């Protein structure tokens, strides 16, 4: 349906999107996930043909978005980050204009506009000027604009930003229902949103695709990182060998404890086996009191942070250096 091949976008020396490759299949909801500035909007702007790529290509149902633009764009409805609304039009005028722009046959236009206004729940305000609508309603009109013409692919760039919690839930439900008949791609930097709505998640960081999988598989990966954290008072080596003697224990990591005479352990088990009770009785037998025991559950958030933050840390250290240099210069100035 959509093929993205080796997509690159450079702005001067800055590479916003760096060699993206993925395929979007029919009838699923895809989520683009990434921190701010990861290249989500740039990628969407390239898929929809608003901007051109530095290299690489985007094929929509086999049509190149740049060379075969008119044909390719027919398949797409797009809601950009800022809804493209004309403030001096009423809601109905605007939707009529968009329907005409998207070459919806004249006889279907009115019924389609009524239907869509019903779907996005703006039916009670067709004659209000868009200028006077609240942010949430503007977003809905933007969404209606993307759905007009019932394109096969609907692309939504951060569709729930700036909405109140109730509206967010409504828009999510709406997106889910759209997913039944359309292919939907949405971008977000909110993980819970993506895992709640999408069938498939593409995680982007620094213009690169760092992971792509279903939310379930990503969660499974996250659980592999589950661990039991312990603080036990007693002889370090004896405690470790006692813990390792358990059948289900996969690995034990030992850390220096802040408390005197204690050991901190991080224990991972096979198949997430629960060994807390056995561990308690065993340590009691050995007269090593357990001061703390906590089951640390890795979440999708951890995976997300792990995947997206690593390169950023490098950048940050660079920034810090820069800050220090500037600070030094300032000191120098004040000395003068």
């Amino acid at each position, binding site marked *: 349906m959509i093929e993205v091949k080796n997509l690159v976008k450079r702005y001067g020396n800055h590479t916003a999107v760096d060699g993206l490759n993925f395929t979007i299949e029919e009838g699923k909801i895809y989520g683009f996930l990434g921190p701010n500035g990861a290249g989500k909007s740039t990628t969407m702007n390239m898929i929809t043909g608003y901007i051109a790529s530095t290299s690489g290509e985007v094929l929509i149902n086999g049509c190149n978005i740049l060379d075969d633009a008119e044909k390719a764009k027919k398949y797409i409805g797009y809601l950009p980050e800022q809804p493209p609304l004309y403030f001096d039009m009423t809601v109905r005028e605007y939707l009529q204009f968009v329907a005409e*722009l998207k070459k919806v046959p004249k006889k279907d236009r009115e019924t389609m506009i009524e239907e869509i206004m019903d779907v996005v729940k703006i039916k009670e305000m067709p004659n209000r000027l868009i200028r006077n609508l609240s942010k949430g309603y503007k977003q809905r009109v933007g969404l209606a604009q993307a759905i007009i013409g019932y394109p096969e692919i609907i692309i939504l760039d951060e569709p729930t930003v700036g909405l109140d919690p109730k509206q967010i839930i409504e828009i999510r439900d709406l997106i889910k229902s759209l997913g039944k008949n359309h292919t939907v791609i949405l971008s977000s930097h909110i993980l819970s949103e993506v895992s709640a709505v999408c069938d498939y998640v593409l995680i982007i960081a620094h213009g690169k695709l760092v992971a792509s999988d279903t939310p379930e598989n990503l969660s499974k990966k996250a659980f592999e990182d589950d661990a039991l954290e312990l603080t036990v008072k007693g002889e370090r080596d004896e405690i470790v060998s006692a813990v390792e003697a358990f059948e289900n224990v996969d690995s034990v990591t030992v850390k220096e404890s802040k408390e005197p005479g204690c050991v901190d352990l991080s224990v991972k088990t096979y198949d997430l086996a629960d060994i807390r009770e056995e561990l308690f009785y065993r340590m009691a037998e050995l007269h090593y009191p357990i001061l703390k025991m906590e089951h640390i559950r890795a979440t999708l958030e951890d995976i997300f942070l792990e995947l997206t933050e690593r390169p950023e840390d490098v950048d940050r250290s660079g920034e810090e250096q820069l800050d220090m240099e500037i600070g030094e210069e300032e000191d120098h100035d004040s000395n003068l």
Partner: protein
Amino acid sequence: MIVICKKELRSYFTSMMGYIFVFFILLVTGIYFTAYNINSAYPKLDYTLNAVLFVFLVAVPVLTMKILADERRLKTDQLLLTAPLKVEDIVLGKYLALITIYAIPILIICLYPLIMSQFGTVSMFEAYTVILGFFLLGCADIAIGVYISSVTESQVIAAVITFGVLFVSFVMEGIAQFFSTAAVTSLVCYMVLVVILALIIEMMFRSKTIAVAVGAAGEIILLILYAVNSTLFESGIQKFLSIFNLAGHFNNFANGILDLSGVLYFVSVIGVCMLLTVQSILKRRWN
């Protein structure tokens, strides 16, 4: 194309812009028409319309400043450029809307000869030729405004630059007179122009060799031409500057001559501006 045109027309007439433009042109031409043709009973429109050409300096920037700049500022160009529509259609649709708005005062001006004919004999052919010239000149000015609006995001900057360009074009005849008509002056000016052309090529293609080659070839050709026949260069700079003197091409129409080369000139100015507008929109995609 028609969609965009309809949308723009609606937008210009729901805001004050369209009315102000029409009103302003009619007000100024009306005053001059009353003074020259009604009160002084002068049977031709040439003085009248020649005297009101300054109206474009103000009216055109006001009309064209928002046409593309505002789409960019409000990001509504994302809707237009991702719709199944050619960039050419967007630009031409918008231009067509502006021309339609401009045609309203022109149609009313077309009544002037009929009013005059109530009081005596009027040469209808001459009168409508003047009006045709006036219409074409306005269309060319609007095309320039559309291009400038496509270059910037700010309406104010678009308006100021459009005013500046139209003003320079308006006083171009005076500027041309600063230069001597001697052949040597033209030769020097042309040589400077070739250097500027070479610099532009260097900026566009980032290739020193092409720029130097074009520059050197141009200079050599100029020198050879000058050596062979220096009379070619006499008052050459004036001829060159007259390309930018839009109002100057209105003169023949004002004298009641249906000047086909003038029509061709205005149509080419419009064509070049439309082409540049499309290119400036397409180019922004790649940056």
